[in-house]
């Protein structure tokens, strides 16, 4: 008898279970939940049906008569990386749960499977495949990212962006934690993704974790995992945390200052030992994840006002990168605007091809406090309310229509003149002297704070300490 129950409008789940009665039971429960099933009783049949139907979600028993379920899972993920695989097993071992998660399992269920738990696990997995993200505060990248997208990640030709891209390439080769700073909307996450995609971890997951979006009491479980002890009656599942999901990949931590003290202590422990202890108190599990943090303000302030542990700050603030605001990127704003305009017009079913010269001038002169996010809003407004093919100044918000001839434009001119004068003043000095002058001035501006000066200059604090030692030795 075939237990396959093809879906009508609901997605079909591939159910891999060798015990016929359990296959029948799970299939019945899933049907009640509105899901069709395609059933397989061994690894070979599972792979054959997977290749044939390409299901988005698979329920996979780990112990199969002909092969190990882990091998089947790896083959499925190699064929279709975005598949959500829910592992089911009668072994509630933490080691197995961690191994399965590392191998790419989305969830881990321990028999006996309660109806609600089974349906909710499948519903979550199906929802994620539709959204393309794990949930509101943790998201994974699809691993088959086209390589061309990496280079196109930061369109623009400005010097500041060229320097940033150069730094990103260098940082990608390292394992050291990176700390990305920049105003809201500048593309800090894009910067982190680019580092990940250029690194040798690109085949692994890019997992984001926004501390501000997760309640403090849930951060520990969401970041490090949760689960009951297998010895505990009624134990049914072990959920991997964001850190474990980023094994052999990258964990992108946003708004570290909103991380609870308990989670900060645990993160520090992970950074020191490279291992995490799961909630059931089992042996620590090694996790190989690179950490990249981001903030839109100075983390030193968080450290000073007690929101961020000092020892954690020094562990994470190893390689600083600053994503420049849009107003500092010169003509990049118009290059980006043209790229975005075509995309937005396509989404809105309109035909736009470019910017009028006056619009480009207004864009160049604007302050863009909301950066690229604000630029997107301005373009979308123009596209939605008007017909193309060119964005004219009349399509822009009133304050922006004035910007082309406004005070911002004058300020930009004055700034350019000041830069020319400074360059003249530095004439005759060696690079080493200019460097010492710039660093000393920055330290003075920050009341003697080396980390803050380093951040302003976009270099590591250790660089300043080393240089100061050289200067002192030279003076002696």
């Amino acid at each position, binding site marked *: 008898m075939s237990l396959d129950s093809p879906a009508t409008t609901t997605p079909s789940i591939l159910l891999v279970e060798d*015990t016929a009665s359990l296959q029948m039971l799970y299939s*019945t429960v899933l049907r009640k939940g509105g899901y069709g099933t395609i059933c397989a009783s061994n690894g070979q049949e599972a792979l054959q049906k997977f290749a044939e139907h390409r299901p988005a979600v698979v329920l996979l028993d780990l112990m199969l008569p002909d092969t190990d379920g882990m091998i089947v899972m790896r083959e499925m993920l190699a064929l279709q990386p975005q598949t959500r695989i829910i592992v089911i097993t009668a072994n509630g071992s933490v080691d197995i749960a961690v191994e399965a998660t590392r191998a790419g399992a989305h969830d881990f269920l321990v028999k006996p499977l309660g109806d609600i738990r089974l349906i909710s696990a499948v519903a979550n997995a199906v929802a994620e495949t539709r959204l393309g993200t794990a949930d509101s505060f943790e998201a994974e990248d699809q691993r088959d990212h086209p390589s061309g997208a990496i280079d196109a990640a930061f369109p623009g030709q400005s010097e500041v962006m060229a320097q940033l891209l150069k730094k990103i390439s260098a940082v990608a080769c390292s394992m050291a934690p990176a700390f990305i700073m920049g105003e809201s909307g500048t593309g800090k996450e894009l910067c982190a993704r680019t580092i990940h995609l250029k690194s040798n971890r690109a085949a692994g997951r890019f997992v984001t974790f926004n501390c501000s979006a997760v309640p403090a009491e849930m951060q520990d479980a969401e970041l490090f995992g949760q689960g009951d002890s297998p010895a505990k009656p009624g134990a049914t599942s072990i959920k991997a945390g964001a850190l474990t999901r980023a094994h052999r990949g990258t964990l992108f931590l946003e708004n570290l200052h909103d991380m609870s003290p308990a989670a900060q202590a645990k993160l520090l422990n992970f950074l020191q030992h490279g291992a995490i202890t799961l909630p059931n108190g089992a042996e620590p599990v090694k996790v190989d994840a690179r950490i990249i943090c981001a903030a839109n303000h100075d983390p030193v302030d968080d450290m000073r006002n007690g929101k961020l542990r000092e020892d954690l700050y020094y562990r994470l603030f190893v390689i600083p990168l600053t994503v420049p605001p849009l107003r500092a990127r010169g003509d990049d704003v118009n290059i980006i605007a043209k790229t975005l305009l075509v995309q937005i017009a396509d989404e809105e079913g309109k035909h736009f091809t470019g910017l009028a010269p006056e619009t480009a001038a207004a864009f160049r002169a604007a302050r863009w406090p909301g950066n690229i996010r604000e630029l997107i809003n301005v373009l979308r407004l123009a596209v939605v309310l008007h017909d193309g093919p060119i964005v004219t100044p009349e399509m822009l918000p009133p304050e922006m229509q004035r910007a082309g001839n406004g005070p911002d434009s004058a300020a930009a001119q004055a700034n350019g003149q000041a830069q020319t004068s400074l360059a003249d003043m530095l004439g005759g000095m060696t690079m080493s002297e200019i460097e010492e002058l710039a660093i000393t001035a920055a330290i003075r501006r920050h009341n003697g704070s080396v980390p803050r000066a380093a951040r302003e200059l976009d270099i590591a604090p250790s660089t300043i300490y080393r240089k100061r030692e050289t200067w002192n030795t030279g003076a002696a």
Partner: protein
Amino acid sequence: MTTILDSDSLAALLGCGDSTVVAALLEQMMSDFARLHDQGVVLMASLGAQADTDFSALRRLAHEAKGLALTIGAHKLTQICAEAEVLAQKGDRDALSQCWADMIGLCSDARVELAQNRMRV
């Protein structure tokens, strides 16, 4: 009569669908337990023959029986299956022989109890 099935687990099982579905499910479970019992008897014989013991097959069978026992709430059977699984993995022939006899006996009991419930559906 001593019951080996947990009443809550059984109730959940009996409530998983209409009578046709439940009857088919119970029959399939009876069939699975009968198969596990029969395969268990064959494998038990191999425990006496030093060279022919397939510990990997013993482990797989104990594991499968454990999964089924967990689902119907047969706690004692679950425990013995888990023990048999560990002993098979270790290759502890003597301890496994005694444990295995208990396990296949309980598989038979479980099948009988499922059959009684099947008649009530």
